[in-house]
């Protein structure tokens, strides 16, 4: 263990904590009525977003799903713009038109969260196609849950990606649930076997172990940049909050709910850091930094202005450039 690896883990820890604290803050704002609509939190799954994104460049692209806050933050969406968007403000990254399920930031290759389960998968295929045509050595990543495995576009996308050797990484965040139904009642195949059938190299990792996710992603992504072609990464993880904020999760066993804490990727990471002899004060400093950063962003969110309707029509189509 080098201080190098400790520094790296501290960085990953901080970024996971950022996602966590942002989402807990959103939960708070939501229950205060400051977030319209509904939100899906990725609490407990932070290691996936942070671990995978650790391997990417800004020019790589990702397509996300309804549970996309972590992906957006990890890919580098400006925090203020993120809060402003989820809170439905004019200064939001999408001008308040999309909200939680549609956060996107083209400037960092975040092609959008998505309200349609599975829809991000073929979008990412298209993005990978663009990278291949442009020969820019970028890769595209599709993030999707175990529930999305049942959608036909997954199958089509695996096939086309493999057939065309597209630079796409399929990341399945398997948290065992799709809404209120367990995966076992939803999908009979193992992702591993699908990967094999479509001749796409597959890897499964403990999605609550940030080092495991980050290391696997690094290896996979450098391999992709060297050798091209698609890859599948399945991250086994846990959804801690309800499907959407406010969902009481009555459909889950008390035992299962009680055990969730044992899998908390941030806690596990902190344990790891302590084993590595990370200094208390460093960890505390990180906690403080994140807390300040998040509460500042939430304040910015609160202070944002409500979007005015008048400008909307002009964004349905691209305005004609004046010659």
């Amino acid at each position, binding site marked *: 263990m080098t201080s190098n690896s400790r520094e790296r883990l501290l960085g990953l820890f901080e970024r996971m904590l950022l996602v966590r604290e942002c989402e807990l803050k959103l939960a708070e704002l939501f229950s205060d009525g400051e977030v319209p609509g509904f939100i899906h939190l990725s609490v407990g799954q932070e290691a996936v977003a942070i671990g995978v994104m650790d391997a990417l460049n800004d020019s790589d692209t990702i397509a996300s799903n309804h549970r996309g806050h972590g992906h957006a933050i990890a890919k580098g969406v400006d925090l203020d713009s993120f809060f402003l968007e989820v809170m439905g403000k004019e200064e939001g990254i999408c001008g308040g*038109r999309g909200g939680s399920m*549609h956060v996107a930031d083209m400037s960092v290759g975040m092609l959008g969260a998505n*309200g*349609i389960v599975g829809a991000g998968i073929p979008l990412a295929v298209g993005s990978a196609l663009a990278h291949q045509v442009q020969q820019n050595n970028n890769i595209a990543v599709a993030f999707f849950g175990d529930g999305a495995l049942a959608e*036909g576009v997954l199958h089509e996308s695996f096939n086309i990606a493999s057939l065309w050797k597209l630079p796409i990484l399929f990341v399945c965040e398997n948290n065992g649930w799709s809404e209120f*139904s367990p995966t076992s*009642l939803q999908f009979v195949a193992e992702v591993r076997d699908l990967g094999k059938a479509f001749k796409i190299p597959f890897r499964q990792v403990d999605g609550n172990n940030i080092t495991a996710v980050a290391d696997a992603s690094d290896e996979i992504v450098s391999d992709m940049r060297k050798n091209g072609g698609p890859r599948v990464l399945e991250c086994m993880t846990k959804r801690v909050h309800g499907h959407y904020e406010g969902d009481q999760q009555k*459909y889950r066993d008390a035992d299962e709910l009680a055990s969730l804490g044992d899998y908390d990727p941030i806690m596990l990471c902190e344990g790891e850091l302590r084993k590595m002899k990370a200094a208390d004060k460093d960890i505390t400093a990180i906690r403080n930094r994140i807390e300040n950063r998040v509460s500042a962003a939430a304040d910015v969110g609160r202070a944002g202005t409500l*979007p005015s309707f008048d400008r*909307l029509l002009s964004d349905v189509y691209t305005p004609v450039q004046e010659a």
Partner: protein
Amino acid sequence: MGEVRFGQAINLALDESLKNDPSVVVFGEDIARPGGPFGVTRGLLEKYGELRVRDTPISEATIVSAAVGAAMSGLKPVVEIMFMDFITIAMDGLVNQAAKARFMFGGQCSVPMVLRTPHGGGVNAGPQHSQCLEAWFAHVPGLKVVIPSNSGDAYGLLKAAIADPDPVIFVENKALYAVKGQMDDDAPALEIGKAHIARPGADVTVVSYGAAVNTALRAADTLAQSGIELEVIDLRSIQPWDEATVLASLSRTHRLIVLHEAVTAFGVGAEIAARMADVGFDELDAPIVRVGAPFMPVPFAASLEPQYLPDADDLIAAVHKVLA
């Protein structure tokens, strides 16, 4: 039976249909064990068992096409698409299979299935969870499209839809689920294709359907105070739609407005207006005005969605326009 919520009325119609007809089955995402994303199907699994009430994987295309195949093989499936926006994934089963089977097979079979799905905004669900896409289906020969505006109609129309031999898209405005309304056990059975005059009035005919009918009734209350009487027609079904009732009303009022929550352009109102500009032309004393959503996706923000959705004020402005 008194007052029941819209969602509960649907639950009762499903329950009764399952009870009375063993060929009725219900399936969809999270509708069985969890009782439905809006609680509409609660209790059905417990009563009718796993064979007839099933949770499906997230596979809309197959859910709908399987309903078609099941309907061709002796069942009456009632399937749910969780948000109407997701119907984009299931169009083939509806349009190329369900709608055409009877015709293209020369009348050999019917396809007795119902697809229930919520449309509409009002809960800040954003551009992919709020659309009203019913005009698409009204354009497809072979499909019927039913859209109730209140609990009693939801109950009666859903029973009629399930009993109907042909494929019916049954659209539920999600903002209505919690709204209470009168439901009479001994109300006469409702017939698909017959409109209901929700409020008689002599000055302007307002044709509407679904939740927008309630908007029209509110506007009518307001306008009545200044002596303007709207005749509010609740179409109840838009395919087929009750041209005779609309034309008869227009022949009394000579003024027509169509109101719906869907985008105005190329929406359901276009057909009503176009038809009346043909067969009702001689009755018209004023331009036909349509009130609907502007030509844009449904915006998310709390400040935007209410302005996007057509409301009573928009209708009142239109009334003043046709009376000008």
